[in-house]
């Protein structure tokens, strides 16, 4: 039997005895602990009391289970939360539509700028050609309006006006506004 001075050493065994009772001690350690138990009545008594306590606790503590309706009740609560997610989805769709609209606006703005520039360049070119004829040649205006080139002058002026009108019209009408979806 262990002397009282060895009880501190016996206490070191308590963890392992508990694991032995719970079946959690590796076999090599279990052999060592069993050898100690064979020689130590104090530890045998402790093991016996621990095993009884362990068994009593295992039997005494209730092991409740979830009720059968648990999943259905949880699903009902989650379903209530899902419309909030639906609103989120609609919001995300609106954000996406907004982004598409911005892209469309940028695209048509570029087209408008290109058409405007082409129209303006055409008009300017025609006006320059006409002015060359009118200003730089002798007896310019009269000669131009009465001479053999008058058709060219009138044609150039008309073409310039037509080009300016077409360019301006295209730039005004080319941008088709996309429709917003209703939600």
């Amino acid at each position, binding site marked *: 039997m262990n002397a009282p001075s060895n009880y501190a050493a016996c206490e070191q065994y*308590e*963890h392992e005895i*508990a694991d032995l009772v*719970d079946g*959690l001690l590796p076999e090599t350690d279990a052999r060592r602990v069993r050898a100690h138990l064979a020689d130590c009545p104090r530890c045998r008594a402790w093991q016996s*009391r*621990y095993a009884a*306590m*362990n068994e*009593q*606790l*295992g*039997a*005494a*503590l*209730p*092991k*409740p289970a*979830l*009720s059968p309706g*648990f*999943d259905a*009740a*949880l699903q009902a*609560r*989650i379903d209530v*939360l899902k419309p909030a997610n639906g609103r989120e989805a609609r919001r995300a769709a609106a954000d996406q539509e907004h982004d598409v609209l911005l892209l469309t606006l940028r695209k048509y703005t570029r087209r408008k700028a290109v058409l405007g520039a082409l129209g303006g360049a055409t008009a300017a070119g025609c006006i320059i050609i006409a002015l060359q004829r009118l200003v730089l040649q002798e007896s310019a205006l009269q000669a131009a309006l009465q001479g053999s080139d008058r058709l060219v002058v009138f044609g150039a002026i008309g073409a310039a006006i037509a080009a300016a009108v077409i360019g301006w019209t295209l730039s005004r009408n080319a941008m088709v506004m996309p429709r917003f979806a209703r939600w």
Partner: protein
Amino acid sequence: MDAGIEQLLAEGRHARAFDLIVPAFRDRVFRLACSILRDRAAAEDAAQETLVRVWKALPGFDGRAALGTWIYAITRNTCLMEIRKRRPTVSLDDPDSDEAQHAAAAASVGPAADPERDNLLRLLESLPANQQEAVRLFYLEDRSYDAVAESLGMPLGTVKNLLHRARKNLMALAQPVHEEKAA
């Protein structure tokens, strides 16, 4: 199990991930709630509340902690909030308190009246709250230290020490009763 769920979470498929989380975690969430609240109905409500919170928080889960660790932390917080909601000024030792009645109700679940079992449960009630939780959870989790450590968010060694102290305390408390019987 967790790998499939975490893959879905990484892909942003939160609803599908939640469908897998519920069967994988609901029982352990419930058992953890049982060990803290000591009342089957309250534990089931807490398990529902926990899983609803998981559903709401799932898009924000960043994977820094393991999924189980995260869910059990939510469970413990939910249970602590439930305990705070109860009347804070009533002592757990007051036989008329809700807690004492819950404990009595919990104790009454299971086998028919057994004086030894009732005495053991009374002794268990006298232990510090953390030791009680660990003991209850240990037997609810089929004596798995790993499961208790994961659920309580504690290192394995800490859980073993806590359980050892709790069972030693119970044995010390139970000894006078046995000695009286022997006399």
